[in-house]
Each structure stands twice: as C-alpha cells, then as structure tokens.
C-alpha cells in the first residue's frame, strides 16, 4: 500500500475528492495547513506594523491506497488540482507497511 500525501489549493479540494472517488478511492484524511514554497505569501499591515506572511493556505490530503491504484491516484490529483499557476502543489508517495480498519479489524488492502 502507498500513502499519497498531496498539498493542493484549498478551492480544488471538492473537485479532487470527487475525481478520486470516481477512480475508486474510498477514504482520505484532509488537513488545513500552511504551505511554504515558491508561491510567495503576502504582507499584512496593522497600524503601520508590517508582517510578511510567508505561508499560503493549502490543503493536505493523505490517501492510503493499494499499490495498484497509487499511480492512478497521483495522476488524478495532478490533473485535477492543476491550474497552471504557481503554488498548485506537490504530491509525495510513501510506502505503507500495514493498514487496519478499527471497526472490523480488517487489515491491509481490505482495510482501505
């Protein structure tokens, strides 16, 4: 199994989720994060005090899928999250050794 971690633009979340559902992904974890990358942040000014905020709001997806589905997931995210503007995000793939479904105790591919 693979853990696919992706940082994408927040407004793309629904679209990506739907696309992934279509190809058979049945679960994921979504976290609101602050992203740092080439996309530059912004400056805020409060009564003359300027703060450069180097972070940009992103959404981070974590999806564990069977090895066979992994490439398709990466591809789907890549095409769906894409806007061709800087800051579209990154996808990382890690290996997962084990998976368990709490409710049933099923493991690995059955647990997904």
């Amino acid at each position, binding site marked *: 199994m693979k853990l696919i971690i992706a940082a994408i633009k927040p*407004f793309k979340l*629904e679209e990506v989720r739907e696309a992934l559902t279509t190809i058979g992904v049945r679960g994921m974890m979504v976290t609101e994060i602050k992203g740092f990358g080439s996309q530059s942040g*912004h*400056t*805020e*000014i*409060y009564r003359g005090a300027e703060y450069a905020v180097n972070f940009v709001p992103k959404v981070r997806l974590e999806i564990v899928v069977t090895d066979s589905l992994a490439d398709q997931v990466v591809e789907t995210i890549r095409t769906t999250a894409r806007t061709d503007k800087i800051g579209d995000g990154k996808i990382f793939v890690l290996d997962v050794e084990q998976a368990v479904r709490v409710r049933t105790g099923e493991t690995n591919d059955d647990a997904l």
Partner: protein
Amino acid sequence: MKNLMKLSGLAALGALAGLPAAAQDAATAAAAPLAPYTFEQSVNNGDVAWMSISTILVLLMTVPGLALFYGGLVRTKNMLSVLTQVFAICAIVAIIWVTYGYSLAFTYGGSLDTFVGGFSKAFLAGVDVNSKVATFTNGVYLPEFTFIAFQMTFACITPALIVGAFAERIKFSALMVFIVLWVTLIYFPMAHMVWWWGGPDFLAQEQTAKLIAEAAGDTAAAEAAAANLAANGLLWNWGALDFAGGTVVHINAGVAGLVGCIVLGKRVGYGKESMAPHSLTMTMIGASLLFVGWFGFNAGSNLESNAITALAIVNTFVAACAGGVAWMFIEWAMKGKPSLLGLVSGVVAGLVAVTPAAGFAGPMGSVVLGLVAGAVCFLFVAYVKNALGLDDSLDVFGVHGIGGIIGAIATGILVNPALGGAGIPDYLSQPGTLQVAEYVASTAIMAQIKAVLFTLVFSGVGSFILYKLVDMTIGLRVKQDVEREGLDLAEHGERAYSS
C-alpha cells in the same frame, strides 16, 4: 412662494388624504369668523432624550449591527471587507450629510421641490442651537440638530444595506464612488419626495389662511396658501404612508441591491463551492442589534416620546417576533429543521415589513404582518431566488425588497381603524388639531402601490445607470484571483482572525 418657511418633519402622514373632508368641514367651520393661526414652538427634554437615544440606536444598527449580520454570512476571507464597507459607508455618508445631504433632503428645492431640496443649508448654514423643526404634534418642536442627527443615521444605514447583495466580489474603491453617487442622486431625492412636508403648524397656518382668503374672496391669497399646502415631496402628496422608511430605506436599498447583484454577476464558485456563513454567531449578534436598534428607527420616527412611540415599540417588537416564528416554522416544515439563520432572517423580515406601518397599525395587525413577511420572504429566498438564478449574496432584495413591499402595501390596509389601526392622520379639517380621516381602502392601498412602483422604478433605473457608470470607469468587480484569495487580504491587507 417667497418667504416660505418650511418646517421639516418626518414620516409620510398623508395629510392630504384628508383634503376632501377638510373642504367640507372647513365650509361649516368657516361660518364662524376665522382668526389667523398662531403657534408657539415648545421643546420637551423628554422628546430630546428619546430622539437622542433613537439616533444612537440607529447607529448601533449600522455599526456593529448590520456589519455583523452581513459579516457573519460571508466566508472568513471576506469578513473584513464587509465590515469595512459598512463602516466606511457610514463614515463617508455622515460627512456628506452635514455637507450637502441634509440640505438636499430637507430644504425647499425651488422649482425642483417636488423631487429634491436645494443647497440653502449646505454646510448646515444657518442651523444653530436655537433652530427647531416640527414634529407631528402642533406646537411641539425638536432642536434642528436633533433632527439632523437622527436623519443622518438613516442616510448612513440605507446605502450600507445594499452591500450585502454583491458581497465578496466588489472592488472597494468602486463601491465608495458608487455610494457617493447613489446617496446624492437616489437617496436624498427619495427622502425628500417621501418626507418633505410643512409640519402640523405650517399646514394649520396655511389652511387657515386659505379659508380666510376664500371667505374674503381673495383668490390670489387663497391660491398662494394652496400652493404652500401642496409644497411637499411627490410621494407625500400622493398620500403614501411611510412611518419610518419602508420605501425610502428598504425598498430603495433592496432594489439597488438586486440590480447590483445582476450587474456584477455571480461569485466565482457560486453553486459549486460551499459558501456557508463563516460565523452564525456574528450574524446572530448582528440580527439582535438590528432588532434592538430598530426601535430607534421605527419608534424614533415618531419624533416624540408619547403613546404613539409606545405603540410603535409594541408593533415593532411583535412583528419582528412573528416574522422570526413564521420563517422558523415554515422552514421546519419544508426543509426539515428550524435553523437559527432562518429565525433571525425572519426577525429582520418582520422588522422590515413593519417599518412603514409602525405607528399606523395595531399590535394584532403587526403580528399578522410579521407572519406574512416571514413566510413570503422565506419562500422567495429559498425557492424563487434560486429559480431566478440570482446571486444576491446576503438576500438584500429577498429580505429588504420583498419585506419592504409587503410592509408598504400592508400599511395601507392595517392603518384602518376597523383593523385596530391608528387611522390616516388629517391635519387640515380642523387646523391646529390632528384628526383621523375617513378610511377608504381603495384610496389608501392605491397610494401605497403607487409609491412602491415609483420607488422600484426610480431606484432600479437610477441605480442601474450608476452601476454602469462606475463599471465603465473604474470597474466594479475584483479580479478572479483576488476573489479566490479573499478581499480581506487583497483589498485591505489584513486578516480577520489570527492566532
């Protein structure tokens, strides 16, 4: 019409509806020789206290009331833009008001007087602590500064109501320019047309003069007096009743909002992304402060602190509650759950509807009015709006426009003493006293419908032209990227919430 010293007052009382009756009665009265009408101007500290607090309450409706009501409904990223828009409009319009707005609304406008006032009180020229304005009772006056302050708050809140219709997508600079134009060309004239009249003593004086002249066969003098009696705003002369601003404030702003949301187009992601309110807590606070402040708006429009003030308070209270209850239960029935947002939206709808009726209807009439307004506004907002594909972000038209129209027309019905209403005031049949004119349903209701239609057209067309003007020059709408990032950061350089 030289030397016409108009005494400004508030809230259309349809004085002229009493004219035919007046003619008859006057004929009888004229049997006894008539003396010219004279009067004293007395100011009551209790009235001043009430009007001061009413002024403050209407300000409270605007900031933070309306700002929070609207702000809570937008997404986090646009919170500050809404707060800034409302507050900045309030601030700028206040300055315009003392500069020339008050003058345009509440002075004699020469040949344009039917439509708008003049510049004689620009920069509040000639107003000092001894200046007074008429109320609705003969002989009872207010310091003019009190009236200026009270009416200022109406000028401040009305344009601020509009911003809800195109929230989350308008350019701040464009909005500021639009609002300056709008208050100048739409609001001040509307206020003049609805609320510019002579006041009880002026009417008594001119009516008496007319009767004396007629008895003496002095047609010129009689005509001059008649002209003075008719030197009111257009809608006032139509006999349209508007106690606290159903047409001037709510229909006016509602239509301007409707046109605005159509001209600007839908928000990016509308119908696809979730645009759930970022804080219904703020919306609830805002709605509550609108509720609380509305007593200043409605009961303050009585200009005095007496039993009619109390009636307006009761009416406002129960219409608001009825509106909330109606919306909540009908939503419960049709959508399965009674929501807080529904409840408070209904409260606002009830408040809007009772605005023109506040001092005219009876409490039970106001309950019914609130129920109807809550139900109809719900149906519009939950079904019709979507069917029409309108992105009126915060339902300015659905609540203020629709609620305002219901209220304006219902006022013509509920004023009927047979329904517990206060009756149509008549200052002319017995000059110097306030009588209740005979109620004729068709006349009363037609006057209201005429006023509503006029407002829809005047404000609709006028606003449309102004939007287009601003759009063609500086552009109304922010770029798509800015809209996605949120107006707070892009337009104001701030975030509403940090840690």
